[in-house]
């Protein structure tokens, strides 16, 4: 968790990258992470693939299906990440749906996260209420930052509750949609970014969903601390394989 908090204090806009573990090839996880760090990425979300990713668009769904076909499992992900902290220093988060975590055993999963050097978790279908009543203490025990999402439909009251429960950053969904790329944000979205900035929340916000190029990255980071690219990077992996993160990153920053 401390690695995320330190990174958030850096005086720069953060580039954060999502990729699906086990895609395009089963054993690409480590090399993708190392290349991303070398290319200047500030933070990484490692996607734990799930058969039924409700909040994801076609690109991430397809990469998850492929990863599962390749043989990706929760246990294998932890094995692949076993020595990751010997070579990688930037914050690493796992983004995954709750059912695979539940089957792995929640406590066991969090413990493994801590052992491998994972700093935070994004679990889209673990809502704030369930986190607070059942899982808060276990996040704290293993020093994992819980990351919650907000959307343009989230009320200010609820945003403040989420801010209160968060200890790193808030994942700000750019628009009402599932994950996927777009070429530019419209006036309405920019107004939303500015409005959230004006709330003066205690946690910085990082924008995800719809970031795909330097235009959308600049728009997203005008008022917020950073942006997350997912689908667009997954497409890049599919086209060019896992060894070429650098060209991708150079089109963003």
């Amino acid at each position: 968790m401390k690695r995320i908090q330190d990174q958030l204090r850096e005086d720069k806009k953060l580039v954060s990258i999502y990729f699906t573990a086990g895609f395009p090839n089963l054993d690409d996880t480590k090399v993708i992470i190392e290349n991303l760090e070398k290319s200047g990425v500030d933070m990484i979300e490692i996607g734990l693939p799930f058969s039924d990713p409700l909040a994801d668009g076609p690109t991430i769904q397809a990469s998850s299906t492929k990863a599962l076909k390749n043989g990706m499992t929760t246990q294998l992900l932890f094995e692949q990440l076993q020595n990751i902290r010997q070579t990688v220093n930037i914050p690493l988060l796992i983004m995954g749906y709750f059912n695979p975590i539940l089957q792995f055993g929640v406590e066991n999963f969090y413990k493994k996260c801590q052992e491998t050097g994972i700093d935070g978790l994004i679990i889209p279908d673990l809502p704030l209420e369930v986190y607070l009543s059942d899982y808060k203490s276990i996040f704290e025990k293993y020093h994992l930052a819980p990351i919650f999402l907000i959307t343009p439909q989230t009320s200010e009251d609820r945003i403040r509750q989420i801010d209160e429960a968060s200890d790193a950053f808030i994942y700000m969904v750019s628009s009402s949609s599932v994950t996927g790329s777009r070429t530019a944000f419209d006036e309405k979205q920019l107004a939303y970014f500015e409005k959230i900035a004006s709330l003066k929340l205690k946690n910085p916000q990082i924008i995800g969903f719809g970031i795909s190029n330097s235009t959308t990255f600049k728009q997203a980071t005008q008022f917020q601390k950073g942006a997350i690219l997912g689908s667009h990077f997954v497409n890049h992996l599919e086209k060019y394989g896992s060894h070429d993160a650098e060209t991708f990153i150079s089109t963003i920053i």
Partner: protein
Amino acid sequence: MNTNYNSDEKGYYGSFGGAFIPEMLYPNVEELRRNYLKISQEPEFKKEFHSLLKQYVGRPTPLYLAKRLSEKYNTKIYLKREDLCHTGAHKINNTIGQILLAKRLGKQRIIAETGAGQHGVATATVCALMGLQCIVYMGEVDIERQAPNIARMKMLGAEVRPVSSGSRTLKDATNEAIRDWISNPEATFYIIGSVVGPHPYPDMVARFQSIISEEMQLQLMEQENRQNPDYVIACVGGGSNAAGAFYHFLENEDVKLIAAEAAGKGIDSGESAATSALGKIGIIHGSKTLLMQTDDGQITEPYSISAGLDYPGIGPMHAHLFESKRAEFLSITDDQAMQAGIELAQLEGIIPAIESAHALAVLECKKFRPEDIVIINLSGRGDKDLNTYINYFKL
């Protein structure tokens, strides 16, 4: 009412249920949660709901004493004739309720998922009735095997969107409907067809379907001078017809409840949909319930000859009825169901849906006493299954 078997205010049935939804769905689900009881208990709502059930759906549906079937099994068997509902199954009880709610919430666009197409047709029907836009998500695999229902939905003015993700069946159609709702959060209402999904859906759908057991009690009083049967039998996929058939008997433990699940080609065949036998606790479509999945928590694809029972989970109410042993769960194979289907046709002149034939097949599996009163919920008619019957029996 004592609520041992109904949901608590957070939508839990024992340890099952709840609302495990992404934040993007929170405002819509919360709006529904805050309003569904309030609106559905308003006198005006009740009046409109019951008037449509009577004049449009054709309720009350008969509680029919099946004499020849009773003779064969040497017990007293009543059939609750949901197959006589408009559109051919109980599904419309729920879609009428939800469309009235959607209208009162000011929604203009309706989305739904469908497997066999029955819920899709029931949704398209009420959308036509209310003049609302209707989009139905349906897996490509199901579209191929249910052509007549696609045509019905189109005639009713609905748009059918083929789903090509995942295994291209009901669970993927449900995922896609949820994604649509995420992307259209303001004027869209999602009509779920079973007692599944995040709270308040399981409770809401069970309440709309509870008309089935409400009528059973009144009709049994008329015909037998008693309110409660000894047994109520219903098939369970997600479990909406069973929820409706069990609802008013849940707290009366003298009434034994039997849920018939689809064993497909057999529980150990790898091609089955018997969730209570094969499932573990997990999360599907926003609900914590019993779920067929791999050790790694990936949801597996179920199989049944009946498209309507082809769901890898069961509603949280049923997971609780199973765990608490309030209901007995029996697994019925494809073959047992098909035999029960043709038996009903030849003994009583009624062609049942293959889903309902699973409930009928319980008669072969379990011994009832001559003095028992057994109600079987005949949830749908078999017209939609003619092709399957033709192929199976080489008719």
